[in-house]
C-alpha cells in the first residue's frame, strides 16, 4: 500500500485526552476522592538500616477514627514486585510492611483516617524506637555486608552471557582498550506521584492504580492475600506519567491488604518526597568494558563486568541487569562476548524499571568507551562505527531474535551529514573559557519479549457497533504516550471507521483480555499489530456476513463496503446483519509475535562547556530514529523530545546521592535538578521509515529508545570539547571544572 494514501497512519491525530489535559480537567486518582475511603499515610523509616525495637501507636490511635496497621499485623509473605506472571523466578525479599527498615523510606506502618490531614497527623504521632545498624551504601562493598541488610545473607545476584571464542579474540587482538563508566541512580520524575485505591466489593477486591501491568498487580496481590486471581480486579487508572516508575508493584499490595483487612476502601497517596525516597529508581551501574580490535579497528570481542545497585530490595534489578547484557550484542557485530553482571543490595531507595530497562546504562557505558577508545587509537568515531554496526536481518549471536530491518548505518551516515559532523568535529574555543564540540552516540532497543525468557502475546476483541462506530477491548495501559489514540488510528486505517468513532479501552482484568503489559517497548509492535489483525478479522467477518445477507459478493475496498460497484453504509450493514441474521460483528484475536526486531537511533549533540562554571549548554541537537513507520508523527516527536530531556539530565545533573549513613542528600526537586525548558535544545528530528516486518504498517518502538543514546552523546561532546575522559555520570559542574583545570596538563 502506498504510504501517501494512508488515511490515519502517520497522521497527527489529536489524542483523546488532549482537551481535558490542557484544561486541567483530566481526572487522576487523587482528584476524585472515593466515598467512605480511608486515606492511608505510610510511616516511612528515617533510617537506612535499622530494626524496630518498639512501636507505640497509643497516642496516634487516640485520634478518633484512625486505623493503624503496623509490620506486626502484616503478613510475612515475601514477594518480588517486578514479577508479572506466576513462576517468574525473581527472588522475593519484600514484605508489605517491615520491622527491619532497609532504606530511608522503607514501609513500617500504614496509618489511616477519613482525611489526609488526620492520617498524616496520626502517622507523625506513632513513636518508633530503632536500633540503628551500619548502612550499606557502596555497591563495591555491599556483597560483603549483605548479612547486615538482609537476614537471607545473599551476597549478590549474578548473571552472565557469553558466546564465541573470547580468549582467541583477545589473544589475537592488535589493540585491547578498556574503560569504566558509572551511571547514577535516578528518579523518574513523573508529574503524578504514586497513588492507589483499593475497594472491597463482596468477594472481589477492586484495585485502581495508574500502573503498567494490571495482570502483574493482580498476581502480586494474590501472592500476599492468598486469593484467586479471578477475585482480584485491577483497573488501570488515569496516569500522569510513569517512565517505568509505576511498572513494578509498590504500594498496591499494601493498599489491597489493608482494604481487605478493614473491609473499607483505602486510598494511598504520596508526596514528591515520598515518591522519591520510597518507590523505585533507575539502577546505578558501574561497568567496566574491554574491547579487542584488529589493526583496522574491527571489533573481535568484548567483555563486560558490571556491578548494578538494586537498592534495598532486589526488585526487577536482576532482570534489568540481564536486559543490559542482552542489548550488548545487538548494535555492533561482536564475534565473541562475555558479559558478567552482579546485582547487589544496598540500603538505598530500590531500583527497578526505568525507561529503557537497562539500555540507557549499557549503551552509555559502551558508547562513551567507544569514543574514548577511538581517540586513544586515532580512529574516526563515525568511520569506526560504520565499520562495525550491524546490517539488516543479521542474527543476534547471543541467541536473541533476529535484529530485523536494521537501519542504524543509515541513521549514522545521514545524521553525520545533516549535523555537519566533518565540519564540526574539531573543538572550538571562544572567549578563553567556552569550549564547543560535537558528540554523538548510537543505540538499539527491542520490540517486545519474543525470544526472551518471557512470553509475549496480546488478546483483543473488536466490536463494530450498530451505528458504524467501534470498540476495541484491549488491555492497554495509556502511560501518557498516546498509545490508545495510536491504536485507534490503526483500527481506523483498517476498517475505514472515523477515528473519532473508535474507543480503545484500557486494562481492566475483569473485562479485558490478557496482555503481557505496557512494558518492553512492545505496545506498538505487538499490541498495535494485534489491533491491526483483529481489525482485519472484523472486516472479513463483516464482508462475509454482508455477502450472506445480500446474497451477493460484498468486498471491502478503499475503506468501505462495496457491493457490485455500489458503496454500502457500514453502520446500516451492521444493523441489518444484527436484525436479519442475528449476528453481531465482534471478533476476538490473539496475536503471538514471531519476531522482535531492534529499533535503532543515533543522536548528535553540540555543546558549549564553560570551563570556569562547569555548566554545559546544549546548543544543537539531532535525533535520528529507525522506527519503521510512525503511526502518529507528533506522538513520536513528543517521545523523542522527552527522551532527550531525560537523557541530558542523566548526563549532566540528575542523581540521588546518599551519605555514608545512607541518608539521602536529595529528597525533592530543590536539589534534584531536571533539565527545564529554558535549557532544552530545540531538537531536529529525522525519522527513517522503512517498514519493519511484523509491526503494524511497518511500525516499531520509539518510547524507550528515544532516551537511550542521549547521555552518551552529551558526555562524548563534553569529552571532545575538553579533551577529557569523564566517565562518572552525571558530569556535574564541579566535575567539569576539575576536568577543565587539568586540560593540557
Amino acid at each position: 500500500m502506498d504510504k501517501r494514501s494512508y488515511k490515519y497512519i502517520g497522521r497527527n491525530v489529536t489524542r483523546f485526552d488532549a482537551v481535558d489535559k490542557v484544561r486541567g480537567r483530566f481526572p487522576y486518582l487523587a482528584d476524585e476522592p472515593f466515598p467512605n475511603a480511608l486515606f492511608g499515610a505510610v510511616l516511612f523509616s528515617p533510617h537506612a538500616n535499622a530494626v524496630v525495637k518498639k512501636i507505640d501507636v497509643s497516642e496516634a490511635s487516640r485520634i478518633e477514627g484512625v486505623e493503624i496497621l503496623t509490620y506486626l499485623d502484616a503478613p510475612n509473605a515475601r514477594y518480588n514486585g517486578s514479577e508479572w506472571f506466576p513462576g517468574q523466578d525473581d527472588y522475593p525479599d519484600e514484605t508489605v510492611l517491615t520491622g527491619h527498615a532497609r532504606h530511608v523510606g522503607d514501609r513500617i506502618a500504614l496509618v489511616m483516617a477519613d482525611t489526609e490531614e488526620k492520617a498524616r497527623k496520626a502517622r507523625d504521632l506513632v513513636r518508633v524506637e530503632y536500633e540503628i545498624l551500619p548502612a550499606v551504601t557502596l555497591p563495591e562493598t555491599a556483597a560483603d555486608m549483605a548479612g547486615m541488610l538482609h537476614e537471607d545473607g545473599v551476597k549478590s545476584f549474578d548473571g552472565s552471557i557469553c558466546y564465541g571464542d573470547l580468549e582467541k579474540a583477545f589473544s589475537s587482538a592488535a589493540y585491547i582498550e578498556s574503560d569504566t563508566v558509572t551511571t547514577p541512580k535516578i528518579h523518574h520524575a513523573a508529574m503524578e506521584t504514586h497513588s492507589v485505591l483499593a475497594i472491597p466489593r463482596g468477594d472481589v477486591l477492586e484495585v485502581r492504580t495508574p500502573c503498567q501491568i494490571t495482570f502483574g498487580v493482580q498476581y502480586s496481590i494474590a501472592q500476599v492475600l492468598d486469593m484467586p486471581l479471578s477475585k482480584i480486579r485491577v483497573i488501570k487508572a488515569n496516569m500522569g506519567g510513569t517512565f517505568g516508575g509505576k511498572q513494578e508493584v509498590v504500594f498496591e499490595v499494601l493498599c489491597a491488604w489493608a482494604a481487605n483487612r478493614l473491609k473499607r476502601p483505602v486510598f494511598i497517596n504520596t508526596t514528591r518526597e515520598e515518591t522519591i525516597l520510597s518507590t523505585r529508581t533507575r539502577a546505578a551501574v558501574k561497568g567496566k568494558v574491554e574491547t579487542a580490535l584488529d589493526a583496522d579497528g574491527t571489533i573481535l570481542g568484548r567483555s563486560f563486568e558490571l556491578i548494578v545497585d538494586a537498592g534495598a530490595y532486589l526488585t526487577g534489578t536482576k532482570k534489568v541487569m540481564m536486559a543490559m547484557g542482552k542489548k550488548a550484542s545487538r548494535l555492533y557485530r561482536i564475534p565473541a562476548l562475555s558479559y558478567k553482571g552482579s546485582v547487589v543490595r544496598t540500603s538505598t531507595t530500590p531500583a527497578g524499571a526505568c525507561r529503557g530497562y537497562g539500555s540507557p546504562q549499557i549503551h552509555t557505558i559502551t558508547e562513551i568507551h567507544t569514543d574514548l577508545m577511538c581517540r586513544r587509537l586515532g580512529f574516526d568515531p563515525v568511520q569506526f562505527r560504520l565499520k562495525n554496526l550491524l546490517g539488516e536481518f543479521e542474527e543476534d549471536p547471543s541467541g536473541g531474535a533476529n535484529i530485523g530491518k536494521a537501519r542504524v548505518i543509515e541513521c549514522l551516515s545521514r545524521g553525520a551529514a545533516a549535523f555537519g559532523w566533518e565540519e564540526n568535529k574539531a573543538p572550538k574555543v571562544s572567549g578563553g573559557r567556552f569550549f564547543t564540540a560535537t558528540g554523538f552516540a548510537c543505540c538499539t532497543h527491542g520490540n517486545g519479549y519474543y525470544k526472551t525468557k518471557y512470553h509475549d502475546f496480546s488478546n483483543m476483541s473488536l466490536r463494530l457497533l450498530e451505528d458504524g462506530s467501534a470498540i476495541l477491548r484491549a488491555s492497554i495501559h495509556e502511560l501518557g504516550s498516546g498509545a490508545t489514540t495510536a491504536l485507534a488510528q490503526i483500527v481506523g486505517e483498517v476498517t475505514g471507521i472515523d477515528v473519532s468513532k473508535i474507543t480503545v479501552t484500557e486494562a481492566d482484568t475483569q473485562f479485558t483480555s490478557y496482555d503481557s503489559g505496557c512494558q518492553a517497548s512492545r505496545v506498538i509492535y505487538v499490541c498495535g499489530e494485534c489491533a491491526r489483525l483483529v481489525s482485519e478479522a472484523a472486516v472479513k467477518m463483516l464482508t462475509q456476513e454482508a455477502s450472506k445477507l445480500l446474497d451477493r459478493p460484498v468486498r471491502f475496498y478503499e475503506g468501505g463496503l462495496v457491493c457490485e460497484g455500489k458503496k454500502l453504509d457500514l453502520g446500516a450493514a451492521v444493523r441489518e446483519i444484527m436484525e436479519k441474521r442475528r449476528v453481531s460483528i465482534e471478533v476476538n484475536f490473539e496475536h503471538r509475535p514471531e519476531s522482535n526486531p531492534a529499533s535503532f537511533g543515533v543522536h548528535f549533540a553540540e555543546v558549549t562547556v564553560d570551563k570556569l562554571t562547569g555548566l554545559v549548554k546544549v546548543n544543537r541537537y539531532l535525533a535520528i530514529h529507525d522506527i519503521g513507520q510512525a503511526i502518529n508523527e507528533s506522538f513520536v516527536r513528543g517521545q523523542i523530545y522527552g527522551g532527550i530531556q531525560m537523557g541530558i539530565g542523566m548526563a549532566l545533573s540528575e542523581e540521588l546521592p546518599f551519605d555514608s549513613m545512607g541518608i539521602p542528600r536529595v529528597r525533592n526537586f530543590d536539589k534534584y535538578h531536571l533539565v527545564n525548558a529554558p535549557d532544552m535544545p530545540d531538537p531536529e528530528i529525522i525519522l527513517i521509515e522503512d517498514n519493519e516486518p511484523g509491526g503494524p504498517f511497518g511500525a516499531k518502538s520509539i518510547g524507550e529508545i528515544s532516551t537511550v543514546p542521549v547521555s552518551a552523546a552529551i558526555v562524548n561532546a563534553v569529552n571532545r570539547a575538553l579533551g577529557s575522559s569523564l566517565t562518572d555520570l552525571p558530569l556535574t559542574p564541579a566535575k567539569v571544572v576539575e576536568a577543565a583545570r587539568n586540560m593540557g596538563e
Partner: protein
Amino acid sequence: MTGLFAPRSIEELLSLLAGSGEHEKHFIAGGTDWLIKNRGNISEDAVLFDLSKIPELRGIENRGSYLRLGSMETMTSIHTDPEIRLHAAALCDAASSMGSVQIRNRATVGGNLANASPAADTPGALAALNASAVIFSPSGTKELSIEEVLGTCPNKNTLSDSDIIMEFRIPVRKSHVSAFKKIGSRSEVSIARINLAVSAKYEDGAFCDAMVFVGTLGTAAKRSPEAENALLMPISLRKEGFKKALCEFAGRMIPSRSTLPYKQSAIQALAEDVLEMLEARGRSLEKSGEKSHG
C-alpha cells in the same frame, strides 16, 4: 485555631499585632519561601499576617536623591520598572533571574531579605547599590544597611518580631553603573550556587567607588574589599586582578568548605561576566550622556 490577618494599613497591622499577644507570629510577604517551610506544620495557635495588602509597603518612585522601593514590590514589578532599570541595574538583574515567572510574580524584595537565605539574589544587589532598609516598629522607624539586617547567621535576620521592613532607599548616583549575576545548576529556575553584585562609578573606562558583594559565602551579601580595590586597577590588569581578588575572598570566607574549589572557579566566571556587563553599561551611559549634551 490558626488565624490569618490581612491588614489594609500599617496602623491596622499595629493594632492586630498588639492584640495577638503571645501567639506565634508569622509574617507572609509573597509566601514563596514561607509556604515551603511551613506547609503542614504551623502550630494551631499561630497567627499569620499577610503583608501584601498594605499600601504603605508598595510603590517604586524616584525621589531625586534616592529611589523609594516598597518592600512588598514583587520581583516582576521590580525588573520591569524603568527607574529600577536605569538607576539600579544590579537589582533589575537579580529580580529578573530569580525563580520562575510564577515565583517572580509573588516573591517580594522585602521577603527575600527577611528570609535571609545565603543563596538569596536581591540582598547582594541591594547591598552593592548601597541601599538602606527602612524598618518600622511600634517604637519608631530606623534605617539599617542590608548587612545589618542580614547579620552573620544564615537564614536568620537581625530584626525583632515587631519590626517590619517598610521600604528600601537606593541612592541615585550620577555616572554609576551596577550589575548582578548568579550561577546555579540551570540557566533559569535555579538557586544560586554563587552570585556577585557590583556597583561603581564609571569614568572614561575606569571604575571608582566600587562596592562588591558576594552571595552564598555564609550569608546573602558578603562585602569584598579586596575585589573593590582590584576594580581600581589599571584597565590592562583589572580583569585578572578582579578575578584573583574574588578567588582569594572566597578562600577567606569559606576556607574549609568542600565546595570551595568549585566556587573559586565559578566566581572567576562571574567576575568576567559582571565586569563585561559593567563596562558595557558604562559605555552606554557615556554615550547617552554625550548625546544629551550634544
